[in-house]
């Protein structure tokens, strides 16, 4: 059951992602993107990461995609400009290299239990691991400083984007 769901949603995530990069129409791309985010969220759920899955939908599918669609509409970019210039060689080479990268990643990742930091998460906590309560316990104790730093980053992002997009002198 879980495996079926995993393969199904994974496959759909891959397909929708492919559609993002293949679609001619920018708005279509954006919509495929939303779909892709949803399937990703399902994958997170399958990993028992409920909070992250919900964030994924709220932040990505909600906020970021709103930005993007808003920008597309504002800039009137539904169609990509016509291909007048030949495709650069670097792009072809880059694609070839990406194939290599994919296999290298497979060789390196698949079948290996990659050692990482062993966390303070006990077996008992595992059941409720993705819950907000567990995460927030860590977030507001051990990860308080990064959390605050991120808030500063977000503030800087707001100020920066307002400054950049302001009419007039930029």
């Amino acid at each position, binding site marked *: 059951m879980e495996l079926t769901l995993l393969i199904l949603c994974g496959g759909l995530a891959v397909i929708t992602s492919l559609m993002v990069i293949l679609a001619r129409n920018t708005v279509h791309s954006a919509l495929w993107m939303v779909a892709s985010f949803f399937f990703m969220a399902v994958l997170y759920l399958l990993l028992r990461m409920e909070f992250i899955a919900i964030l994924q939908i709220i932040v990505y599918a909600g906020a970021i995609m709103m930005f993007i669609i808003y920008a597309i509409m504002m800039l009137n970019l539904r169609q990509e400009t016509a291909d007048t210039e030949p495709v*650069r060689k*670097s*792009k072809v080479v880059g694609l070839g*290299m990406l194939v290599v*990268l994919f296999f*290298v*990643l497979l*060789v390196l990742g698949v079948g290996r239990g990659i050692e990482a930091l062993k966390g303070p998460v006990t077996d008992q906590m595992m059941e409720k691991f993705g819950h907000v309560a567990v995460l927030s316990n860590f977030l507001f104790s051990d990860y308080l400083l990064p959390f605050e730093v991120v808030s500063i980053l977000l503030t800087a992002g707001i100020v920066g984007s307002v400054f950049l997009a302001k009419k007039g002198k930029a």
Partner: protein
Amino acid sequence: MFDYVWLIPVFPAIGVLINGFLGKRIEKFNKSIVHWVACGAVGLSFLVTCIIFFQMLGLEPEHRFYEFTCFNWISGGVLQTYVAYQIDPLSMLMCMFVTGVGFLIHVYSIGYMAHDEGRYYRFFTYLNLFMFSMINLILANNFLLMFLGWEGVGMCSYLLIGFWFSEEANAVAGKKAFITNRVGDFFFIVGMLVLFCGLGEHGVWSFQFSRVFPNVHLLSPNTVTLVCLLFFAGCTAKSAQIPLYIWLPDAMAGPTPVSALIHAATMVTSGVYMVARSNILYSLSPFAMGVVAVVGALTALFAASIGLAQNDIKKVLAYSTVSQLGYMFLGLGVGAYAAGMFHVLTHSFFKALLFMGAGSVIHAMSGEQDMRLMGGLRKKTPITFITMFIATLAIAGIPGLSGFFSKDEILWQAYSSPHGHFLLWLTGAVAAGMTAFYMFRLIFMTFYNENRAPEDVQHHIHESPKAMTVPLMVLAVLSVIGGYLGVPHALGGSNRFHKFLDPVMGMGPDKIFQKAAGGSLHHVAEGSHVAAHHPSLFMEYLLMAVSVAIALIGIYIAYVMYVKKRDLPEKLAEKFRLLHRMLFNKWYVDELYTLVIIRPFHGISNFFWKIIDVIMIDGMVNGVARVVGWGSSVLRLIQSGYVQCYAVSIIFGTVALLVYYFLKIAG
């Protein structure tokens, strides 16, 4: 008790600072302040020297040694070198006559340089700088400080030879002196280092005389010989011996007081001083002593022979100086260090006098130096004539004057000392005869007969001012009485001069080993000096008579040739044409050096310049620049400005890193 010894070099140094930095303004304001400062500085040095000298005379001979350390000069690991001065009979003797004669020449320069506008202060600055360096050379208690003075006097010599540098010949002469001296200095440095390292092997890391000399017995004989020869090679340049004497005759391009001070009385004798200072080293190496003696004797003869045919009054004196320096080295080489130093002393009196007299003559002749255009000056410049005549008698070795005692002692030692030989004596004696001849030739050509100068010059002939004649008279007196310091035993004297130097010179090889066995450094034993053993009193009288006879013959020939039958020189020159040409052209030594050394050197230098430097080194440097430029112009294309190209290169990098990581965990 001699803690104020540092005043001796400091006075001239102050003179240098005042005249060097403010001289131009002072000279504009009042010229006489310049020479008052300069002469005053040297005069005060002389005064302090006198005080120390006589204070030292009051001490027992074995206590006549004192070292005063001013400050730490070079401090690095085992090498600790101090600016420190050593007071002992030898250094004080040198210092006495260097500051004394130097003072007289400073005074003389006031008159001689009076007409040199605008450069007056510079001349006195250089002279004071020279005095400072020379005093450092003499008083130093270690080889490094001595070398500082050694280089300093060389530099001053260069500056003063080329003092009238607007004429190219003078500048060239200065350059020649400087470069020739560099050759010698190189050997001196190497010698110092060999000595330093050689002693260092035995744990004595020092340049200080009082530490080096008592330990030289630790060195192997070959090292000692090597050091001695290297030091002597340094001396051949500084003291104008074969083969590096060539710069001294050309050095006469400088003002005459300079010739008198630097190139006759003081600087050129520093080589003699250095050998005398290192007498312990030389005593350990009979071979090196032999070299010194032979080179000295040959130089004496060779230079005298050139002097026979020169017409420039200063050139004659220059070759005479080279020849007399040869005598001094002959004396040192046969182990008669005190005799050599004695000749240094007397020579400084009469040779300085001769040069200053010649300067007076040149002054009178409105700058003319060719003796063929002189003559008859006896009546017009009487003081110059009388004083120069005394000096000439002294240098010719006429009994009763200073030169006789010193020269005769050297000749006697050349014959009788354990290191001596009959041939050395013969060479010296022949050279003495030549000396008498050419010196009287100079006198006769200059002061006798009628004047051969052009009309307008003749009108100007006058006796020199007091500033010039007074030093002449003082030196004339010294030239007469200077010899009585060291009347030998054979003539009923007690040879005080030798006794005075004994604490320094008495260190024969036996003494050193005695010292090594626990004796005292300044222990003086009776009869330790080589002069002490007399083979035969009769022989001494005989040789003395012979050398006086040779001198008299030389004088007589000069009289015949240049006063009585004045067409004789021409005839002789005709008859012995080849010989005359050789002598007149100084045996073509300069030409030989040009051919053998300078030309190939130029060739090599040109090769290094045009091939090695321009093509290879510049080519390498420019080539690197060109390769980088070309490489950049190619690599520039990678930076396309397209952000996606950069993304591709990031992917490449990622793949490369991952592959590397994979290979690492796989391997």
